[in-house]
């Protein structure tokens, strides 16, 4: 399968470049002929009943900054992607299809990636129903997600892939009802769809077992050791592994007010389970604890810019009292942000995000108990490579986005940064995109991580040595 897909991707790519490319380009050009009366005729086929295929061919390369350690890879991104995309709408409904042929040189695999395969119908004038593989998004945060618990791909973010890959598609059914000024959406995932997080295959990640065994490094995985850290798992068989999310939204004089609910699981492995085998050896495995969230958001124009506010109450269902050190404590989360255009060329946005642990006293106590159960005093635990520094009750995240566009918006320079003082880590991305023609564009950028060597269990901190640069060429057809 793998080999066949690779062959198929390469031959499709070659076919596009050698044959389809120029032909398509020509057709595209004739679409845009200067004499529009003639162009209208040429454009008609794209408008006709038959499915029109479009898509792109992209080539991406990403490299680690400097000399990588034995834990790290020199090349972190090497991907050729060929997309076939089509849409067909009829009286009864609409089909959207996006199929990618991917050849990945880092993981040395080729595969088919169904990015979208959904059918949308309107059973009633006030209802839309969409079923299949699809991407769902809501919430008003810019790269901060409180009530959006749809699967995200953090690896795409950390490797500098196009923003569309920040969201992972998943099998779901979405019902949207429109009753006057109020919209109600319900999304059901029959199978839990977690975020794609660093798993040791490309970047070295925190190894929880280093907490138990001082001979193990705090960071593990990577080149040649892909998949060696325990794969994060749900507690198999204990629960139905489905997810449900809902949103109620209304317009209030230019402001959009929304209420949210979610029942499912933490989207990244925010829990660990300690197990002891027959020989008495202990090990830790990452799990996705159960989660329930209720929240609200408000967004709209305030003065010259856009204000966004969002809040959520996270109930950690597997640790309601906060007594389990290895399971994420429940929290109250909130963010407020403002973004505005300063000129036709420059815009900026800032956000402040705050997270408050709900059962902090119980959490503190649970940490002490945990080390005791491992037969360690806290001082002894601190000497272990994977020692987890006690978290603080309050955590903040600050984000900054700067966007500069020039040359009639064919040149974009984007900066986005996260800064988290209590976790002593951060992530910064700077990229430049140039559109050379209707078909061709190029993106170049860097991804920089910040972290404290003592805080290697933290999201960005564990990636502190993984700074990388990337280049992407895209041919749209």
């Amino acid at each position, binding site marked *: 399968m793998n080999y066949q897909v690779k062959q198929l991707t390469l031959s499709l790519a070659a076919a596009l470049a050698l044959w389809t490319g120029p032909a398509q380009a020509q057709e*595209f050009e004739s*679409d*845009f002929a*200067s004499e*529009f*009366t003639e*162009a*209208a*005729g040429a*454009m*008609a086929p*794209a*408008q006709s009943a038959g499915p029109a295929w*479009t*898509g*792109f061919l992209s080539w991406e390369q990403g490299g680690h900054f400097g000399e990588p350690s034995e834990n790290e890879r020199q090349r972190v991104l090497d991907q050729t992607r060929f997309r076939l*995309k089509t*849409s067909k*709408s009829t009286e009864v409904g*609409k089909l959207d299809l996006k199929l990618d042929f991917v050849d990945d040189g880092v993981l040395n695999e080729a595969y088919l990636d169904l990015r979208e395969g959904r059918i*949308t119908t*309107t059973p009633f004038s006030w209802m*839309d129903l969409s079923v299949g593989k*699809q*991407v*769902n*998004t809501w919430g*008003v945060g810019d790269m901060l997600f409180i009530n959006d618990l749809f699967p995200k791909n953090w690896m795409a973010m950390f490797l500098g892939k196009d*923003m*569309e890959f*920040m*969201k992972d598609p998943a099998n779901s059914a979405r019902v*949207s009802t*429109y009753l006057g000024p109020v*919209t109600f959406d319900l999304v059901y995932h029959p199978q839990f769809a977690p975020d794609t997080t660093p798993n040791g295959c490309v970047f070295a990640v925190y190894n929880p077992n280093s907490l138990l065994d001082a001979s193990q490094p705090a960071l593990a995985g990577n080149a040649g050791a892909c998949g060696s850290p325990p794969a994060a798992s749900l507690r198999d068989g204990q629960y139905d592994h489905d997810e449900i999310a809902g949103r109620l939204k209304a317009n209030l004089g*230019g402001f*959009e007010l929304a209420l949210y609910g979610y029942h499912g699981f933490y989207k990244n492995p925010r829990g660990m389970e300690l197990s002891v085998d027959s020989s008495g050896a202990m090990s830790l495995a990452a799990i996705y604890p159960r989660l329930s969230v209720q929240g609200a958001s408000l*967004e*709209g*124009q305030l003065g*010259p*810019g*856009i204000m*966004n506010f969002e809040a959520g109450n996270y109930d950690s269902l597997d640790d309601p009292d906060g007594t389990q050190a290895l399971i994420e404590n429940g929290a109250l989360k909130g963010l407020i942000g403002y*973004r*505005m*255009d300063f000129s*036709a060329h420059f815009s900026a946005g800032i956000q402040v995000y705050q997270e408050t642990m709900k059962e902090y006293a119980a959490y503190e106590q649970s940490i002490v108990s945990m080390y005791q159960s491992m037969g360690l005093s806290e001082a002894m635990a601190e000497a272990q490579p994977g020692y987890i520094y006690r978290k603080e009750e309050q955590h903040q995240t600050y984000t900054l986005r700067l966007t500069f*566009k020039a*040359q*009639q*918006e*064919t040149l974009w320079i984007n900066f986005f940064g996260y800064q988290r003082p209590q976790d002593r880590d951060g992530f910064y991305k700077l990229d430049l995109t140039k559109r050379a*023609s*209707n*078909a061709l*564009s190029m993106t170049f950028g860097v991804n920089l991580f910040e972290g404290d060597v003592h805080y290697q269990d933290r999201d960005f901190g564990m990636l502190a040595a993984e700074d990388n640069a990337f280049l992407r060429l*895209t041919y*749209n*057809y």
Partner: protein
Amino acid sequence: MFKFKAILLAAALALPLSAYAESALEIVKKASLASYYAGDDGKAQMLMKVYPQGGGKAISKLFVMLKKDVAEGGEQMFLTYFQRPSDIQKTTFLVHKKIGEDDLRRLYLPASDKVLAISGARKQDPFMGSDFSYEDVSGRHFSKDDHKLLGEETLKEQAAFIVESTPKVKEEKIARMKAWIAKDSYIPLKVEFYDHQGEVFKIYKTGKVMEIDGITTIMHQVMESPKRGTKTELLVNPKQVAYNLGLSESVFSERSLKNPPMQYIR
């Protein structure tokens, strides 16, 4: 010859100003209705060609624009559905144009299913990177300016009024505008935009005009930015333009961002 013109100009200036001021406003109102409020609603497939500095190949965008007049000469709604290039296919843009306050703008990015609230404060910023501003595309309301009739002139064999409009409230870019408005159809044939240095920074020209459903429709518009050396052409597909389709206001709601009314777009 020069002397003759000077005499004409002197004669024009000597005419009663009050009568002229009123008719200038009437002309601009009619021009606004003719170019932005034709029909109660409508659709058009448009091709926007943005030429880079110094010429060269244009970067193009193909889209269908639906519009509805909420009040004749007042509030309007627009839904734009992008068709090409393929990377922006299915991107939709909803604008509720308001008079005397900021527009409501929502951009939908289909690949990430994201609805982005866009500030409607900067009406003079470029529309999709082109030489046209948001306001040039959706129409500048006549109440924002003081209007003065400068005279009449024949432009490309068409008799036209020349109207000068000056913003009532000082603006960042526009110091004044000078428009040539056709006497028969009230279609603006040419508009010069002057900056605060007194120089022309944008020139608008109407190209081809056609009768569609009995309504005079601009099929080809050009906006040039002489100081920057850039140019944008906006063309309407004669086979994909229609008026009075009976579009309801619900077509211009957030629902259409994600599930656009394909029956009007196909």
